[in-house]
């Protein structure tokens, strides 16, 4: 039983022989992680939780509808076609258009003296007219002005100069872009002159208070604008919304509206000889029911045009009025919070478990450069979490959106870059949050304390922020200053200042996607930095 060792001279100076490699520490920590079966299983559970919750986020909806011809349709067939703008975003494109073809370069100039409107009511008895019971007033984003548009097809590229209900003169183009011009409302005493000129693909907007002194508001290139475009006058007015906050959410009244603009000094240069002004109802506005046509349209008296319209020329947003699509891709990532809880526990324990039984001393004796141990652990746990989170997010979004579509839910389409940002961002969020938990585990050393701290710092703010249990202002502050701000990375549809909607969590976050993610990274960096210092100074 004695000495089973062979006689030899020990450790012949190999101490400094090997590469001074961080890779060794990294490999050691990876072996540590993968050889605790409970941790590996927990990661799989996190993925399964994310996907189960995410795939059934929409519930089991079975949409049925009528195609108008008495035939009952199911599921995806019920999703109405949505016009897409030049950028691929779904848009609302409904307005009254008084137009002429414009071939080649040219310009359109008008003076506006009035913008009025009506809202609410409608759908009254036919005898009382379609606008019965409506009230007088313009909407903040009621729009009247001039437009040069590729065609009268919904979603076609355009640039427009307009007066608005309460946002002054604007230049807008291709639905998502908005530039401010002259401030203040339009009236007979303070008229607004508007001009658009086309030169090649470039359209330049000007405004003026007197028709003599013009200011350029913006010059935009509309790629691929065909030689002949449609130019003229337009009026539209979005649904009126009165949003009021109830505890933890908003409730709103939504109703139709229309606006009437009065134009004179209408000049079109570059028109085809012999063309005349013709009205067209783009996108069948019908805001006040089937008889809306009695209201929408235009009258001309000499040089004076009175145009009435309803609808909007704007990107569609979830949470907006008017029954647009409300489902977003990130809706299928709601399970991330469940995965997060599991991963926070693993992240904290990856370090605190070493303290539980003193294994940390073996670890630090093997790697006396302690910062490397923490760095290796952070890289291992972040990589594992990112990979698992990415797999879970890709499945949840890809399959979830497909299922929702098949059930007849219109899911807001996004660009592939946005899709990638949402999916990879969610994985990155999980990875960074887990690293934060790892740092907490290093600082606190006790698993229970570290897990509790991780949950309190990351998961609880997220739930407070999006579960509509706090007043919106408070919820937005939570989503601004806590690590839960990072969930902004999941917001797939931007908020547009020129579109009125309920821009509240969980669809909209107070911080931009990367800024919100940055908040979490800041917390993680701070905690990791403290953990580095403490780990290096503290007796093991």
């Amino acid at each position, binding site marked *: *039983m*004695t*000495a*089973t*060792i062979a*006689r*030899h*001279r*020990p*450790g*012949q*100076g*190999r*101490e*400094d*022989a*090997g*590469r*001074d*490699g961080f890779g*060794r*520490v990294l*490999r*050691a*920590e990876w*072996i*540590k992680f993968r*050889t*605790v*079966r*409970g941790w590996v299983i927990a990661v799989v559970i996190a993925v399964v939780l994310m996907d189960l919750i995410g795939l059934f986020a929409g519930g089991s909806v079975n949409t049925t509808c009528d195609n108008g011809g008495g035939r009952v349709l199911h599921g995806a067939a019920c999703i109405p076609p949505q016009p897409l703008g030049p950028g691929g975003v779904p848009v609302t494109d409904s307005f009254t258009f008084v137009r002429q073809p414009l071939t080649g370069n040219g310009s359109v100039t008008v003076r506006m003296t009035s913008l009025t409107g009506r809202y609410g009511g409608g759908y009254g008895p036919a005898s009382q007219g379609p606008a019965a019971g409506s009230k007088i007033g313009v909407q903040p984003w009621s729009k009247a002005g001039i437009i040069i548009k590729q065609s009268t097809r919904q979603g076609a590229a355009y640039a427009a100069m307009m007066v608005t209900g309460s946002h002054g003169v604007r230049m807008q183009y291709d639905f998502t872009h908005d530039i401010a011009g002259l401030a203040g409302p339009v009236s007979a005493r303070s008229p607004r002159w508007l001009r658009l000129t086309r030169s090649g693909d470039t359209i330049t907007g000007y405004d003026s208070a007197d028709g003599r002194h013009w200011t350029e508001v913006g010059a935009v290139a509309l790629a691929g604008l065909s030689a002949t475009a449609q130019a003229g006058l337009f009026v539209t007015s979005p649904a009126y919304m009165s949003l009021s906050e109830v505890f933890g959410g908003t409730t709103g009244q939504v109703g139709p509206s229309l606006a009437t603009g009065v134009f004179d000094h209408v000049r079109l240069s570059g028109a085809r000889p012999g063309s005349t002004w013709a009205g067209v109802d783009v996108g069948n506005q019908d805001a006040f029911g089937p008889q809306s046509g009695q209201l929408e349209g235009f009258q001309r008296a000499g040089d004076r045009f009175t145009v009435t319209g309803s609808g909007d020329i704007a990107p569609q947003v979830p949470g907006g009025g008017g029954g647009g699509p409300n489902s977003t891709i990130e809706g299928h990532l709601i399970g991330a919070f469940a995965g997060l809880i599991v991963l926070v526990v693993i992240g904290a324990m990856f370090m605190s*478990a*070493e303290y539980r*039984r*003193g*294994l940390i*001393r*073996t*670890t*630090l*004796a*093997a*790697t*006396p*450069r302690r910062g490397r141990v923490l760095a290796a652990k952070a890289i291992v746990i972040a990589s594992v979490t990112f990979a698992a989170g990415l797999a879970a997010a890709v499945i949840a979004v890809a399959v979830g959106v497909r299922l929702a579509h098949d059930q007849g839910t219109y899911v807001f389409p996004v660009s592939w870059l946005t899709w990638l940002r949402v999916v990879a961002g969610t994985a990155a969020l999980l990875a960074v949050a887990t690293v934060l938990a790892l740092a907490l585990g290093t600082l606190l050393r006790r698993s229970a304390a570290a897990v509790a701290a991780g949950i309190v710092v990351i998961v609880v703010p997220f739930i407070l922020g999006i579960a509509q249990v706090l007043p919106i202002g408070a919820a937005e502050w939570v989503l601004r200053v806590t690590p839960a701000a990072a969930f902004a990375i999941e917001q797939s549809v931007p908020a547009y200042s020129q579109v009125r909607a309920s821009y509240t969590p969980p669809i909209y976050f107070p911080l931009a996607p990367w800024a919100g993610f940055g908040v979490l990274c800041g917390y993680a960096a701070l905690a990791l930095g403290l953990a580095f210092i403490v780990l290096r*100074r503290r*007796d*093991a």
Partner: protein
Amino acid sequence: MDTTLEVDGLRKRFGATVALDGMTFTVAPGQVTGFIGPNGAGKSTTMRVILGLDAPDEGRALVGGRPYRTLRRPLTRLGSLLDASALQPSRSGRNHLLWLASSQGLPARRVDAVIEQTGMQAAARRKAGGYSLGMRQRLGIAAAMLGDPSAVMFDEPFNGMDPEGIIWMRGFLRALAAEGRAVLVSSHLMGELQDTAGHLVIVGRGRVIADSSTADLLAAASGDRVILRTAAAAEAAAAVQRGGGSVAAVGQDTLTVTGLAADKIVILLGEAGVPFSEVAAHRASLEEAYLDLTRDAAEYRAAAPAAPDTAPAAPDTQAAR
């Protein structure tokens, strides 16, 4: 490559408690150095300082002339076992060794080699949480041997071992020393190291009480005492005192005589006509030597190496009685 461990003037406080109070000694290659002291004497703290785990308030510890923390692949220089229970219970022994080997850039065959060396092949692939204390000790020793280090350091390696294991451990330690390694083994029981350690560092209350070879220590501790057994204790004591010796009663029939050699005592007793059953020069065991050293403050101070002028006042230094 020979590796000497040098511990030089270590001081460390944990709050109000003085854990190390000028701890100084050297562990030479090629022999087993016993690191002996009662619980709380600072043995484990010293070992943690050597490994760079705890930072001393003063002093330094060097491994082959370098602070441990500057070693790039430390397990190839100094293998250690501090706490055999420091394991992730759900990880197998083999996987525990595998990550350690990886951290030093050692190949997996080293793992299998030390598993065989410590005789734990049967348990290596089971979860470490199910190991007996003895098996955990073997795993800890396997971990210490992974890097084939030129110095090893074991904290209380006999704890929890069955007699067979203790015998194996003694042989193992001797073999390591015979290979030229520096071996530092702590224990709070002198007997465990009786026949194993060639050198002893005895500590109490954070400082070294004695630092010498085992042979010298035994000789010094035995002193010139003679055990005298007699039914006529009073007469015997009188006779010995007349001859210039001093006497202390140990039991009813037993006296301890100092200041006289055994043969001189026999002559004195014969001349006085006092009957006796035994006169024998005392031969101390390590255990007694240890108790002697730690019992008496005066002897303790005499035996302590001359500490640099920082020796604190009496109460603190009257260590481990």
